[in-house]
């Protein structure tokens, strides 16, 4: 076995062992303190709820997935656009940065009802909430990437009589791609959180069918704690899926040249 594959197997075994220990702890807490099922269901009950309600969970997953994806894609596009405007001048940044900060500091729970009122209950407003909560990291990181270009590289472009648009598209933008991905990674997690939070307010157009947030609310009012746990599990899976999707895209676009996704050096000699 290659050392690399072996190391990966050991890592996996370690993670699996931790998982088993956690399950055992969970189960023993139930036995020792005699916790009722509606307070804390057993791991087994959660697994059973997951399997029994698989189709419902899948539908909820799909709804929340679409809302988060919509919000994320919007925040990437708009965030990139805003960053391009910010990169134009220090003056614009100074004027508009405080308002961008506002995006990050205003608790989403506080404005969710407002957005529902303006956009109307349903997936659209949930998407908007996911968008708002995930926008700031894209703007901040991408702007930083756009403006942190080495001065000599700008000089090099100027020496070849490069136009401002050439400097933007052939220098600043490619330079900012790794930072854009850092922003996207943070935003991907936030978009899922935003969508689930939004759904707690947005409700559903049909009884019993809604996204993960709606279903979690529903399960908690019904005291179906095992189902609730299964939904939380599904939410985590969704968050992971988004994160790994962004990680994959990052690897795909950057592995040739960027340090953060290093390949073994092929042919360096002098």
């Amino acid at each position: 076995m290659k050392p690399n594959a072996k190391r990966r197997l050991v890592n996996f075994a370690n993670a699996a062992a931790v998982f088993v220990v956690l399950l055992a702890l969970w189960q023993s807490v139930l036995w020792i303190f005699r916790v009722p099922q509606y307070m804390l269901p057993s791991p087994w009950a959660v697994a059973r709820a997951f399997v029994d309600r698989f189709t419902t969970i899948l539908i909820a997953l799909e709804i929340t997935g679409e809302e988060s994806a919509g919000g994320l894609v919007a925040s990437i596009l708009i965030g990139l656009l805003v960053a391009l405007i910010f990169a134009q001048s220090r003056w614009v940044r100074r004027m508009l940065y405080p308002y961008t900060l506002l995006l990050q500091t205003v608790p989403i729970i506080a404005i969710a009802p407002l957005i529902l009122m303006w956009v109307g209950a349903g997936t659209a407003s949930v998407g908007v909430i996911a968008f708002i909560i995930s926008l700031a990291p894209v703007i901040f990181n991408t702007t930083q990437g756009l403006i942190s270009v080495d001065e000599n590289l700008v000089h090099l472009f100027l020496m070849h009589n490069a136009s401002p648009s050439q400097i933007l598209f052939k220098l600043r933008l490619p330079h900012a791609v790794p930072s854009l991905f850092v922003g996207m990674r943070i935003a991907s997690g936030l978009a899922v959180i935003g969508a689930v939070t939004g759904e707690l307010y947005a409700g559903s157009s049909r009884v019993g069918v809604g996204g993960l947030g709606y279903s979690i609310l529903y399960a908690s009012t019904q005291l179906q704690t095992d189902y609730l746990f299964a939904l939380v599990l599904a939410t985590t899976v969704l968050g992971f899926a988004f994160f790994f999707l962004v990680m994959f895209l990052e690897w795909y676009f950057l592995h040739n040249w960027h340090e953060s996704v290093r390949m073994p050096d092929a042919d360096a000699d002098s």
Partner: protein
Amino acid sequence: MAGRVVPMVEIENLGKRYGAGQPVLGGIHLSVAKGEFVTLIGPSGCGKSTVLKLISGLTPATSGSIRVDGMAPKDAREIISYIFQDATLLPWRTVEQNVGLGLELEGVARRTREQKTAALLDLVGLGHVAKSYPRQLSGGMKMRVSIARALATNPRLLLMDEPFAALDEMSRDRLNEEILRLQAEQKWTAVFVTHSVSEAIFLSTRIIVLAPNPGRVHAEVAVDLPVPRTAALRDAPEFDALAVKVSHALRAALAPEGAPVAAP
């Protein structure tokens, strides 16, 4: 002026200060004829790099005048190439894409660009890494890519700001020899900045020693060593004699005004 040959670089009474600070350069006169290899050498703070920035028009002069082949610096950029201390390669582009950058920015057609790029990579001995990315290269190789990129646009004036300062001595010596070979083939004019006395002597036809605070010309040393120059030249007695002379001028340039300095 009929009959007069226009110098490649003509600097008269050049002064530079940034904002309201101390002047960086105070009244520099310098004329570089076509085909010359002139090196600026001096202690840090003498404004050697600033002179290059001014010749390229990247920063405006505070006083005095600069003409590059009779033109204002900004209008002369088409005939100037600049080589920086770092290789300043774009990490997301392959070696050949980096070499073709200047041509691409100037709107040269892809076909012509690719031919030109391939020829230059062969010239600097990097044909085999054309498709590699900069981070796969050693420091010396990166600098050669940077040189190839600078030469791709057929410059008539090459400005080099300590291009080999970050390299080990062996790579540096070899690149010095290569630079001279390239200049002999392509006949451009060079203004070179360095800290290294031996590099200055090996490369130059003329060495300008600058003094600091504010930067000014302290001494001029003509290097009349035979061409073509080879590695063996570094061991020649004339080479050592010049090294002593330049080092002496450098030390004198650093000495505070009025302090006793041994005559050169």
